[in-house]
């Protein structure tokens, strides 16, 4: 009886205790192990202070989360913080008035926002052309090359020395197929992200005008000779059966984990599944085109960032600022990096991870960071942006599929993708 009375008293008292704190809602798209990291970060932050309570809510996949956020905003019920994937960045940036720039939130919250503390490649992507950070880079990844060491050895290739250029990859892939070491030499996830958008940055060639859309309305230039050469090589390999197409997003990972293909290009964030598959893998940096001057340049971040929605109370913004400040602290970033496989956001966290000897035992984990921050970004390598990037990727996928099915050559596919894409861009930007 007594415990029951205490329970009731506790229940009655709880809302009053909670009322003193400001609640901050955080919608995210992290499931599985990455979802646990989100919950741990929120719990730790809530325990570290008593003024604010961050409430993470899982909203499904990246597109589902974005849609839920948009629908909630239209209904006047937007969350305080929402995680939006890289492709949705342009959508969020076009929504002036619906979002509040992170740099502004941090400064109003009394924190000094020092851009130089953050990894340049990451912060550049989530900033305006003037350099104001718009969203907080929560989880960033970069495409890398995975290869099956057993298949390499069987095919008579050097398993400790993975190919560095695309030409070398094609040679190795053909050798894998011809020697019978595997039925497929090479496969890749995300032809749009890896072979088009990252290809542009890594080989320092424009994806579109206006700094790839970062400085204004873009006009696609993906039908230029370097792309045509690259995609024709891919189409030829597909015809020979050396390159196997897996699908539009990350389906091709299965072709690699099943041992069907010897080489895979995929996000650094995809490491978990490859480890789980138990194959003897190696990681190399993303291949580049040796004919491109200045290649390899730097890769751009994929993944997602946290956006602050507009029209909230000052108290809420103060809480968000405190939370983001907490998120950028070195131990938190280091934990995030080591647990989830995503990249650290600050230089200090990177240095701390390095000092801890983490990369000595996991050298592959440093590859995406080195790729991303090896050189200061050029106008071609800060990332790509369009208000309708999901639609552009759809169009590209359709044309690439027709090309790989042998219905058209690379020049036609890329010309169609650029023309259809540019028409869609004009429509989206209203001119």
């Amino acid at each position: 009886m007594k415990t029951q009375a205490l329970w009731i008293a506790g229940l009655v008292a709880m809302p009053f205790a909670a009322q003193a704190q400001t609640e901050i809602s955080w919608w995210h798209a992290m499931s599985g192990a990455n979802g646990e990291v989100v919950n741990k970060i929120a719990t730790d932050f809530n325990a570290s202070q008593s003024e604010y309570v961050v409430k993470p809510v899982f909203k499904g996949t990246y597109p589902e989360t974005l849609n839920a956020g948009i629908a909630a905003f239209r209904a006047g019920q937007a969350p305080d913080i929402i995680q939006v994937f890289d492709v949705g960045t342009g959508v969020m940036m076009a929504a002036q008035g619906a979002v509040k720039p992170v740099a502004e939130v941090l400064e109003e919250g009394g924190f000094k926002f020092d851009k130089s503390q953050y990894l340049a490649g990451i912060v550049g992507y989530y900033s305006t052309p003037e350099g104001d950070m718009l969203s907080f880079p929560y989880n960033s990844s970069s495409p890398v090359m995975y290869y099956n060491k057993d298949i390499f050895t069987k095919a008579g290739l050097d398993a400790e020395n993975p190919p560095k250029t695309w030409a070398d990859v094609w040679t190795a892939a053909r050798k894998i197929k011809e020697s019978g070491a595997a039925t497929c030499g090479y496969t890749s996830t995300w032809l749009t992200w890896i072979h088009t958008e990252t290809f542009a940055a890594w080989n320092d060639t424009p994806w579109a005008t206006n700094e790839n859309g970062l400085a204004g309305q873009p006009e696609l230039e993906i039908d230029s000779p370097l792309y045509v050469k690259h995609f024709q090589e891919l189409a030829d390999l597909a015809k020979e059966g050396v390159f196997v197409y897996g699908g539009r997003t990350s389906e091709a990972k299965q072709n690699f984990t099943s041992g069907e293909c010897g080489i895979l290009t995929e996000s650094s964030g995809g490491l978990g599944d490859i480890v789980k598959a138990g194959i003897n893998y190696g990681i190399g940096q993303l291949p580049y085109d040796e004919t491109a001057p200045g290649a390899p340049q730097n890769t751009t971040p994929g993944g997602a960032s946290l956006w602050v929605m507009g029209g909230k109370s000052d108290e809420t913004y103060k809480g968000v600022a405190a939370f983001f400040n907490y998120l950028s602290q070195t131990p938190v970033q280091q934990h995030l990096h080591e647990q989830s496989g995503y990249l650290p956001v600050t230089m200090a966290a990177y240095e701390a991870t390095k000092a801890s000897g983490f990369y000595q035992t996991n050298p592959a984990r440093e590859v995406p960071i080195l790729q991303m921050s090896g050189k200061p970004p050029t106008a071609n390598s800060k990332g790509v942006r369009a208000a309708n990037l999901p639609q552009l990727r759809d169009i590209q996928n359709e044309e690439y599929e027709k090309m790989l099915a042998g219905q058209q050559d690379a020049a036609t596919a890329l010309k169609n993708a650029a023309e259809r894409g540019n028409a869609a861009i004009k429509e989206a930007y209203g001119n």
Partner: protein
Amino acid sequence: MRRTVFPHKLLPWLLLAPQLAITLIFFYWPAAQAFRQSVLREDAFGLKTTFVGLANFRKVLGDPAYLNALQVTVIFSALVAFFAMGIALFLAVQAEKVIRGKGFYRTLMIWPYAVAPAIAGMLWLFMFNPSFGTLAWPLRQMGISWNPLLNSNHAMTLVVAASVWKQISYNFLFFVAGLQAIPRSLLEAAAIDGATRRHSFWTIVFPLLAPTTFFLLVVNTVYALFDTFGIIHAVTSGGPGKSTETLVYKVYNDGFVNLIMGDSAAQSVILMLIVIALTAFQFRFIERRVHYG
């Protein structure tokens, strides 16, 4: 005849209220919203809204991709309705002949209906995945270079097969019921007159099943138009190219992936008109030929 007069004025309305409320909230209100959206052009967040009249409709109807989706939908729906009904009828007739364990067979046949479309899609996707699918391997051994990821016909075959498989149970159930309603005496009389099984099926059973067949035709057409979204989403996402993008899938893709609300709403309105016209047509012309016995 005496007309029954109910004394209450309010009570009938009160009793109808829950049903009316559901219809209004879940059918009429969204439909009205679709109409409203279809004449507006808006950014995803609804920050800037402009009235554009029928411009969205003009744009949609002039879009080759939309005409492609229309064509895909016609082919897809015809294939699904034909095979789902044909196979179900065949199975129902065969199940009639079973003497022992009839109930058991029937229960087994009805099971797939309980499977959610997205899950049915995943099942077929895994079975026919070109790299690790259990059933893709024998196809390859037979010399068919099976690849639904790039070959449009293979992709279409796969989504049709999955959609048909899922709908067979439902059709089967109705055909079994329809077959049981056919008087035995007619079949026996035909047998005495020397009709073969085949002959008596086409001249007696099939015509007498017409009401069931007609009902299923309407249901299956609507099923192929709308309920197969989950399967297409899971299996092909409309690809390769745009070869399995049906009208419903395009509404979803334009609205929720590409965030072009006006186009998407205009397409929903057109779809609504198509379904109204199709159902009206089926009832007006095909139903006349139906013999209700």
